[in-house]
Each structure stands twice: as structure tokens, then as C-alpha cells.
């Protein structure tokens, strides 16, 4: 297989490429390169794509007390047993819709907070002398390598009623009763912003570092005020970084489970936690599957946008 020259792939492929796309190489999958590609392809197909089909299937089933705890898609007589009952249930019980909307709100505000903190940081890093740029980059990446769970846990110690912030403020005499910060939406904003900040900074930095400083300098030489040069040149050119960073924060944050369950209160519903409870608490696999499919539908547009950005990055 490896002795085959990859340039001159055999043309007697079993599945000829469609004529509409003549630039696709014929018989790729029969060449050595095809064999190399097939291994990760098959893995991702089996363990990433197929599972979604199964989730969709089980979301149409009914829960039963059995192993596995759901009805088969086809009855004993071969008839289709699918029903949309689980989705009707999601729609009729306002808990779920509230949880979806609340997750979107919490994730969106946290994304804006990440942008507000991350943009000036990324800009400062890109403007820093090249000798310390790598060190600053390392400092941004370092927290990302330490345990996510433990970094969220750190905020439990800081935000508690007898935690670091309240103790300090009481000691300073600013307040005499602790402020309730744990188990609130505020704690969730802090948790998401803190945990996902590096994901915002890295693409922003990549976009700002690539930016040609001569452009801004030329504008300023021609009499452009610094803030105007920033607004008309730097900001528009960094939009790919802003979009990539925002998607990297927003999409996983919507489905976040650890942060709301450790920092959030009982009324700060997030859909990831609802799904978890449905699965582990109620052991209702079909409803948990329907929650997952509905969450995917909510996220389909941002995920497609992210895919397109990745494709464009690969193209250039």
C-alpha cells in the first residue's frame, strides 16, 4: 500500500467522483493516502457522528423500567414506535424553555464580559515588545492547563459568605453583613468569564498580532486620531478574532454543567444541569436525549459559523 505513488492514484475507482466537481481526485479512498485518512475518519464517524443519530432515535422513544431504560424504535411486529411525546413535554413544561433561554442569556453576557476583559489584554500583548510576548502568551495559556474543576472550586472559597471577599470587606469595615454572592447568577458570570477567558484571548491575540502596524501608523501620519485609527483600522481587521473567540466561549458555555452546579443557585437554571439531572436524577434517558437534541438545534447556527471560520483558516 505504501509503495503506491500518491500523486498517480489509480483511476479505476469503484465510486467515480461526480462530474460536477472535476477537481476532486478520483479514487482517493483506494490510494495509500486514502488508507491513512480512513483510520481517523472511521473513528470520528463511529464515535462522534453515529452517537448523534442514536440520541435522536432514543429521543423518540418512551422510558420504561428495563435495561436499557427505553422502548425500542420498532415494535415486535416491525411497526415504527416513534413519538414526539418527549418534545411535546419539553415544550409544555415551562422549566425547559426557561432553562434554555436562561443558559443563552448567561452565556451571552459572560461572552461579552470575556470580550471586554480579553480584548484590551490581547491588544496589550500584541503591542508588547516581542521579547516578552511569548512570556505573556505562556501566562495566558498556563491557567488553561491547570484543572478546570479546581479553578471553579477556587471561586467557591472566594465568593462564600465567609469567603475571601466578604471576610476582607468585613475586616475593612465596608460592610457588616456578608453579601450573598455564591449561588447567584453573579457567581456564574464570574465562573464562566474566568474559565473561558483564555479561549477569548488567544484568537484575538492571533488576529491582532498579524495586523500590520504600518496601516495604523500611515493613518496617524495622515492626521488620523488614535481612537479613530483604532475604530476604522484595528477593530474591523480584528473581527475574525472577535467572532472566533466569542464562539469558542459562547457555545460550550451554553451547555456548561460544572459552573452552575458548583457556583449557581437553585433558581439559576442552566440547560446542561437540567440534562444532567434528567439523566442521573430521574434516569429518564428519552427526555435527556430530547433535551440534548433541542440544545443542538439551538446551537446549530453558531456551530456552523465556527465550522466555516475553521475552514477559512485552513484555506488561507
Amino acid at each position: 500500500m505504501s509503495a503506491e505513488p500518491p500523486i498517480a492514484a489509480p483511476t479505476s475507482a469503484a465510486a467515480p467522483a461526480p462530474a460536477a466537481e472535476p477537481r476532486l481526485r478520483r479514487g482517493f479512498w483506494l490510494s495509500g493516502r486514502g488508507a491513512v485518512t480512513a483510520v481517523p475518519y472511521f473513528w470520528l464517524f463511529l464515535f462522534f457522528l453515529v452517537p448523534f443519530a442514536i440520541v435522536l432515535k432514543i429521543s423518540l422513544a418512551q422510558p420504561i423500567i428495563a435495561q436499557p431504560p427505553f422502548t425500542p424504535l420498532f415494535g415486535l411486529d416491525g411497526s415504527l414506535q416513534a413519538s414526539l411525546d418527549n418534545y411535546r413535554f419539553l415544550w409544555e413544561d415551562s422549566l425547559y424553555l426557561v432553562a434554555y433561554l436562561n443558559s443563552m442569556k448567561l452565556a451571552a453576557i459572560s461572552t461579552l464580559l470575556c470580550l471586554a476583559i480579553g480584548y484590551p489584554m490581547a491588544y496589550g500583548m500584541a503591542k508588547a515588545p516581542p521579547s516578552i510576548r511569548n512570556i505573556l502568551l505562556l501566562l495566558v495559556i498556563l491557567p488553561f492547563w491547570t484543572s478546570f474543576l479546581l479553578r471553579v472550586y477556587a471561586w467557591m472559597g472566594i465568593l462564600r459568605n465567609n469567603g475571601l471577599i466578604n471576610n476582607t470587606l468585613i475586616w475593612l469595615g465596608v460592610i457588616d453583613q456578608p453579601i450573598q454572592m455564591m449561588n447567584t447568577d453573579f457567581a456564574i458570570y464570574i465562573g464562566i468569564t474566568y474559565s473561558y477567558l483564555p479561549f477569548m484571548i488567544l484568537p484575538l491575540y492571533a488576529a491582532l498580532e498579524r495586523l500590520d502596524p504600518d496601516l495604523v501608523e500611515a493613518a496617524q501620519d495622515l492626521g488620523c486620531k488614535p481612537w479613530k485609527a483604532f475604530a476604522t483600522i484595528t477593530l474591523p481587521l480584528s473581527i475574525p478574532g472577535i467572532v472566533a473567540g466569542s464562539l469558542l466561549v459562547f457555545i460550550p458555555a451554553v451547555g456548561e454543567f460544572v459552573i452552575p452546579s458548583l457556583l449557581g443557585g437553585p433558581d439559576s437554571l442552566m440547560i446542561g444541569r437540567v440534562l444532567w439531572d434528567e439523566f442521573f436524577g430521574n434516569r429518564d434517558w428519552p427526555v435527556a436525549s430530547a433535551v440534548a437534541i433541542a440544545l443542538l438545534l439551538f446551537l446549530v447556527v453558531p456551530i456552523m459559523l465556527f465550522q466555516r471560520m475553521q475552514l477559512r483558516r485552513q484555506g488561507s
Partner: protein
Amino acid sequence: MRGRRNWFLFSALCFGFAFLYGPILSLIVYSFNESRLVTVWSGFSTRWYGELFRDPQIINAALLSLRIAAVNATFAVALGTLAGLAIARFGRFRGRLLLTGMIAAPLVMPEVITGLSLLLLFVTLEGLVGWPSGRGVTTITIAHITFSMAYVAVIVQSRLSSLDGSLEEAAQDLGARPWKVFLVITLPIIAPALIAGWLLAFTLSLDDLVIASFVSGPGASTLPMVIFSKVRLGVSPDVNALATIIVGLVTVAVVISGWLMIRSDRRRERDVQAALADRG
């Protein structure tokens, strides 16, 4: 005006890094606190480190997590490298779009969805073909490989795209077989990306709570699962001690690998310059 802007950027950087590192520092400081009430200081002590190492549940979970992480990272690098190579070097082929999609989507997919879908796959497979029988270490490892390989593929692919294929083409023109081109030319070029990818896959696996909770079975509790069940009940000082150890190890590893990477980049630059000077 310029000075004022630099001052603004400087304070933004200071604030940002304080925000990033403050909580980690507080974890470390309070791990040496005597009191059980984590944030009330009552004197310096290392007793929580002692308790940590006497807790067989934590030690066993840590060993299990390290084992899964190492196997995961190795497989993820192998599969991710092939995928990255295919996207960066094999041109357009049928199904390339789907492959790039399957590489990008795991990076942002909410963990609860990935975890649930993999569990349902494993249950279905067990019903259909009898494999995997039950859930545990094997299923956790497979789940981790699936999302880790996407990260490795992105790292390898961006390393390959930043270098043009001229070296590989030259070797091929000189008659090298494809696998030899890969071993002698491509592999050394992407070696730093492979090391970075291995370390990232290792950390991602060590860190994962949600996906492991879904696909795990009785008896297979990873370190994050044990930590989560402890901290769910409130703060606990031995978790602070554990966090300090993890932060220490990660810092050492990241500083060493960062230093090695910067050094190898500098050496390559020097080599390129020397080669250009020779030719001139």
C-alpha cells in the same frame, strides 16, 4: 496621547493577569492553612497534604486518571496526526468537508451532549454486538480519545499549514517513498506539535469530569469525579492541597516545554540564517 493609551493597555494587562492568577494563588495559600474552614486563617500547616496522601480513594482515582490520560494522549496523537496530515497535505478529496467538520465540532460541543451521546452509543453497541461489555476504563478512554484527537488534529494541521510542502515535494522528487517522506521529513517538522498535542490531550483527559461521568461504570472513578463529589458538599482543605500539587506540576511542565520550544525555534532560525549566509 500615545502614553495614555499604553498606560491603559498596561493596566488592562495587570488587571487581567490578576484576575487569572488571583484565585489560583488563593487556592495555594489556603492549602497551607491549619483550619478546616478553608478561608479563615489560623496558622501555617502542611497537615492537609498528609491527609491527602493517606486518602486511598484520592490516590487510586489519581492513578486511574493518569493511566487513562497517558493511553488517551498516545492514541489521540496517532489518530489526530493522521487527520491533521489529511486535511493539510492531501488536497481536496471526497468527504474532506465532513472530516473538517468532525474535527472542528468536538472543540466547541457542550460536554453534556458529547457525554450523553457516547454513553447511548456504548449501550446500543453492547446490545448489538456485545462490545463494550459494561462501562468503565475502556469506555472513558475511547470517549477521551475522540475529543482529544480533534485538538491534536488542529495543532498538527496548523503547524503543517504554516510550512509549505516544498521539503516533502523535494524528497519525493528525489525518489523517496511516501512513508519515508513522512518519517524522515514530515515527522521531524511536526515533532513540536506532536509533543504539544500529547501534553494537551493528557491534560484534557485528566481534567474531564462531565464526559467521564456519563460513560463511566461502577468502580471506575476518575480523579475529577472524586473531587467533584467532595467539593459539591462545600470547600475542603485537602482539595486545596491537591490543587497546589497540580498547579505546581503543570507550571514546571509548561515552563520547561515553553523553554524547549523557544530554544528549538531560535536554533532553527540560526540554522536557516547560517544556511542563507553560506549560500551568499
